[in-house]
């Protein structure tokens, strides 16, 4: 325990000596101060005493949800998961290369501590940067949400483990690269590259999920539409034909038109099913790839899942007056519209995302991390210094 504590104290002193640590802490303070300055009431938004021309009020969002969303979207997603993480990586990328430098590692390795324990303690101690940053940020946000939003949300502190776990995915890669290259710059740049790659995979999968959901809804709508048309046609056939040539002609034309439309719908359904199958294959492939990789965005997204209920989310309003967008079917001469309810699609995507288990999101990501850290530890333990 003496050794572990000594290594953690040394890591804290390392951070304390770094200007970036304090810069990040000041930025965190400024962001929380900015939250506190924003007010929301039934009339709208304000900053200190000035009103903002933004149509958001407590009629749309309750004050506590507003502050929670601000904390999640601005504080966590943009600041902690991007800005502070970049600063943390810059600050900690040198931990392993500096530790492994000739003349530095020798003294420590000559002490009565196993290499594996030494390595894992150094690795864990590097999380202090993010842990302390998020701890301070969460505490300040907890006070702002409580004082300004009137809701004391202990779930805010879930951001500490979540952001630390999120950072640890990236730091594991940084550590492996640091052990292999023994270069801070190489470790940092390659980690950023890996992060970009993960972001690309996650974003592509999210887009594919959206497209798949749209396609699913199209198929579902077409199936319903075809069923109702078939019912209507069947009903029309059962009806007694009206007398007179004109009526017979009209009825015949109507019937032909409906049958043509039904045929078009059936073709559309076939096309939509084919499209859904293709998209599903791609989306499933990306999910498969993601399973083996750290799920950075979804890990951060867990916080919103746990802090904000679906029912509390503001209504989606991207479409027309009824909240839907009519998309014309691009089917050449078969121009029958397939309605697309964007709000329903977005809700369905969020529901699907929220339905993904924590075990899959965090568990598989941690398996990746364990593999990478294990590889780095194996190299460290076997290397001659």
């Amino acid at each position: 325990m003496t050794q572990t504590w000594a290594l953690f104290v040394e890591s804290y002193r390392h951070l304390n000596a770094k200007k970036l640590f304090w810069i990040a802490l000041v930025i965190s303070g400024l962001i929380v101060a900015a939250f506190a300055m924003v007010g929301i009431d039934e009339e709208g938004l304000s900053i200190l005493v000035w009103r903002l021309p933004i149509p958001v009020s407590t009629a749309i969002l309750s004050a506590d949800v507003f502050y929670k969303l601000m904390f999640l979207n601005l504080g966590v997603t943009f600041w902690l998961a991007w800005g502070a993480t970049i600063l943390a990586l810059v600050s900690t990328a040198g931990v392993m290369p500096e530790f492994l430098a000739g003349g530095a590692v020798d003294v420590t390795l000559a002490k009565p501590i196993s290499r594996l324990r030494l390595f894992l303690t150094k690795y864990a101690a590097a999380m202090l940067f993010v842990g302390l940053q998020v701890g301070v940020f969460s505490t300040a946000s907890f006070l702002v949400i409580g004082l300004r939003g009137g809701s004391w949300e202990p779930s805010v502190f879930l951001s500490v483990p979540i952001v630390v776990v999120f950072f640890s995915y990236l730091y594991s890669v940084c550590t492996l690269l640091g052990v292999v290259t023994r270069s801070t710059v190489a470790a940092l740049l390659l980690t950023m590259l890996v992060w970009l790659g993960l972001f690309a995979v996650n974003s592509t999968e999210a887009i594919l999920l959206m497209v798949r959901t749209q396609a699913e809804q199209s198929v579902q709508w077409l199936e319903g539409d075809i069923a109702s048309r078939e019912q209507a046609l069947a009903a029309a056939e059962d009806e007694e034909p009206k007398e007179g040539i004109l009526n017979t002609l009209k009825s015949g034309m109507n019937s032909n038109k409906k049958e043509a439309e039904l045929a078009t719908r059936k073709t559309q359904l076939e096309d939509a099913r084919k499209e859904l199958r293709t998209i599903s294959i791609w989306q499933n492939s990306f999910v498969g790839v993601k399973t083996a990789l750290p799920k950075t965005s979804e890990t951060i997204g867990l916080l919103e899942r746990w802090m904000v209920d679906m029912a509390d989310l503001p209504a989606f309003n991207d479409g027309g007056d009824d909240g839907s967008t009519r998309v014309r079917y691009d089917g050449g001469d078969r121009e029958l519209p397939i309605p697309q309810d964007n709000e329903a699609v977005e809700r369905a995507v969020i529901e699907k995302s929220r339905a993904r288990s924590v075990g899959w999101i965090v568990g598989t990501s941690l398996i990746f991390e364990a593999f990478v850290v294990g590889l780095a530890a194996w190299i460290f333990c076997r290397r001659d210094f």
Partner: protein
Amino acid sequence: MTAAAIDLTNVEKTYRGRIRALRGVSMRVEKGEVFGLLGPNGAGKSTLVKILTTVVRPTRISGTLLGAPVGDKAALARVGYLPENPRFPEYLTGGQVLDLFAAMAKVGRADRKRRAAETLDLVGMTSWASTRIGRYSKGMRQRIGLAQALMNDPEIVFLDEPTDGVDPVGRREIREMLIRMRDEGRTVLLNSHLLSEAETVCGRVAIMVKGQVVRLGTLDDLTRHSRRYEIEASGALPAGDGWRTLIQQLNAEVRAVGEDRDRSLIVAPTDEAAAVQPLLDALRASRATIRSVRPVRASLEELFIESVQSMGEEGAGVGGQKGRAKHGGKGGAL
């Protein structure tokens, strides 16, 4: 027979499957002795020390350190180590460095404070304890390194080039510390390029060349074959069969020395003063002027270079050793 501080048999180390750094090194270092490990660059001295301190993994090893198998963690807690060119975190103060590495050696908090005060005083760094390492000179870093090696009150101390970068006054202080450590009963394994250091403080030395120990023993043992008396005289030397017989009996050699070659140096390969008395009597009888009579033995530097050359070691490494040895060497006469 008491357990040795270090008892190694057939230690081998091959880097990347092709560079043979150690080729079957065997040695025994007794408890309480200051043992010098000498050799040119690349001889394997640092590798051997690093194997003993678990910094490098041996290819093959058989032996013990402080009575336990090499690598035993409990034994390592009783070891102090100062590597060559130590680098400590620049953001820590000297006092914090001592505290950190003492904690790593499982020294309790109260003992750490007491030992820090003692070792800082020992290395003359008390007034710099609160200054960050980043502001230290190389010599000061070396002193702090030495202090951290002593923080756990070790039974054995490995010192790899402890006087590197230290000024002459500091070197003398470190030599005195080594002698003090020996007097306190600690075992010291000194790995140094400065042969004068080893000559002054080491009871025994091992000379390593190309990963092998080529000489091992006390300085007396190693230089016994080179002991001689040198008699310098001027004026006419004795003539006749009696003198020639004396010279032959002692297997001595007569050389002309001096700028004008007007003096003679008689070198008699013996370490017994009585054996050279007949020579002195004969010189006095012939009215030659006896300028000096000196017992001489080979210096460690001579021994070192002889060992290196006997192994066919030539090139930059050996040249470097010669250059350093000249600066630190003490000369042959005792």
